[in-house]
């Protein structure tokens, strides 16, 4: 599974994401393997390529252009787009199988103390 990142938040734009969090999840929701990859530059095409190369089955992001959304779904990748919140909160929802496209995980944003500036992960 792949989450496009903007700091510690789900990236508002798939095409402008320069970091991604890639992880594997067992059937019971347990996280098996996690890594954060920094991309050389923001590019929707390269991100789609990465998704296919890494054999990703689920992508979580904010805004995504229809062209890339259709391409990924055509390649049998599930896309949860327009997700708003921290990437950790998105993973939790995914683990509990409650994540839906367009979810606004308000508590993960409102509770943050350091203002709205996303925190750098890498």
């Amino acid at each position: 599974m792949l989450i496009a990142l903007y700091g510690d938040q789900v990236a508002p734009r798939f095409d402008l994401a320069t970091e991604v969090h890639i992880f594997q999840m067992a059937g019971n929701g347990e996280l098996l393997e996690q890594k954060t990859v920094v991309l050389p530059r923001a590019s929707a095409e390269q991100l789609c390529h990465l998704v296919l190369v890494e054999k990703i089955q689920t992508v979580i992001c904010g805004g995504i252009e229809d062209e890339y959304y259709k391409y990924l779904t055509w390649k049998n990748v599930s896309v949860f787009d327009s997700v708003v919140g921290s990437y950790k909160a998105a993973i939790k929802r995914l683990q509990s199988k409650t994540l839906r496209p367009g979810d606004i995980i308000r508590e993960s944003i409102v509770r943050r103390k350091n203002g709205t500036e996303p925190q750098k992960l890498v």
Partner: protein
Amino acid sequence: MNTWQHTQIKGLFKTPIELPSLMDEIPLGIAVLDTQRRIVLINRAFEALSGFSLGDARGIPCFHIMRSRLCIQKCPIKKMDSNSESISVESDMINKERELIPVLINLSPIKDTHGHLIGFLETVEDLRPLKEVDAKIQQAYGFRHIIGKSREMTKLFQTIPLVAQNDSAVLITGETGTGKDMLAEAIHQASNRAKGPFVKINCGALPETLLESELFGHQKGAFTGAVENKPGRFRLAHNGTLYLTEVGDLPLALQVKLLTFLDDKVVYPLGSTKGFQANVRVITATHRNLDMMVKERMFRKDLMFRLNVVRLHLPPLRKRGDDVRLILDHFLNIFASRFRKDVKNISKKALQILLDYSFPGNVRELRNVVEYAVNICPKGQIQPMHLPAYLMDAKSQSALSPFGEAEPSEWSAPPITSNIEKSDHWTWASRERDIIMEALVKAGGRRNKAAAILGWGRSTLWRKMKQYKINEQ
């Protein structure tokens, strides 16, 4: 949490007014942010543009809702304080419908009565309508289904969107097969009448009596056989465009009736005293030389003046230079995929045959030649043997009258100044060769000077000279 619902403006009128309802009336996306760049309020236009409702967006950092390139790459608000001036930046955003929208974002600080920064005002203008018009004007290599990159065609493509925007009568001239019908339809499609009907009638296809009834309609019993009312093409084209092709073939009697309509915009069906106010834009086309016909009293001068408000001339293919190659490749792709044939390109020899041919039937003829070749060619490259035999027969080519009934020089834009005697059956290649020869003669054989006369680089001149084998002579 409902405090924003009761945000009121006091002192402006006798009674307080609600801020959100006032903002909703403004047709520009507006977002009010706090100092932490969280959404406080958005108006209806912003909701429509972004796809997020006020309930969803409230309290969320604006970059999650705006999703603009500006937010992510270089948010100007970060450096904005109470003394900052407003900033206007062009950017783009992706809405919930997954559309990438070009936008103009205006950001300004909001200050309290003491001058302290209390938030930011963000306005977002959808630039799509403007970009569409720009694209139409800048997309010079084609308009709708018409393609070309020659100077004349580029100029035409830039003119069409402008001509389409008003209701002026348009006269399209050009030889047969140059694309007059396509141009008329392109004008209609680009105009405000695009949702209305586009009605076409060929003035040369019907006898006079039938044509009158066809154009203006008739009343039941107006003549023998008129068993019911007929609306006529003018009435059918109401709120749309009526395209009269081959208007040069319109009989004189009907020319008067058309003239009357153009003046009064009222249609009187045959046998009826009751007129119909038709809101119709008239586009006409002809391959005939109307100026000459006016002189010969075959066409009414006053009608000519009314039709000739905007004249668009489609140049013949032999005057469109490299367009032959462009159109050739275009049709090759179309027919190869339509016939499901693995025909990839055209051989040099076959291409040279086509470039040397003058195409009296213009684009239509080229289209037919390519269709024939794709049909005949089994796969791979089109060879000379796959082309119609008449192309290689120079005699048959010269036997044909390339200009049909019209005299193209009368219709055309002023030709390139040249003292070289013009041949009736020249091709673009022969014309270009002549121009090079003339420049070389003028320059006394000095290539640098000849290139300067032609406005080309020395290497271009060298390449063209090699192409036309001028050196060898």
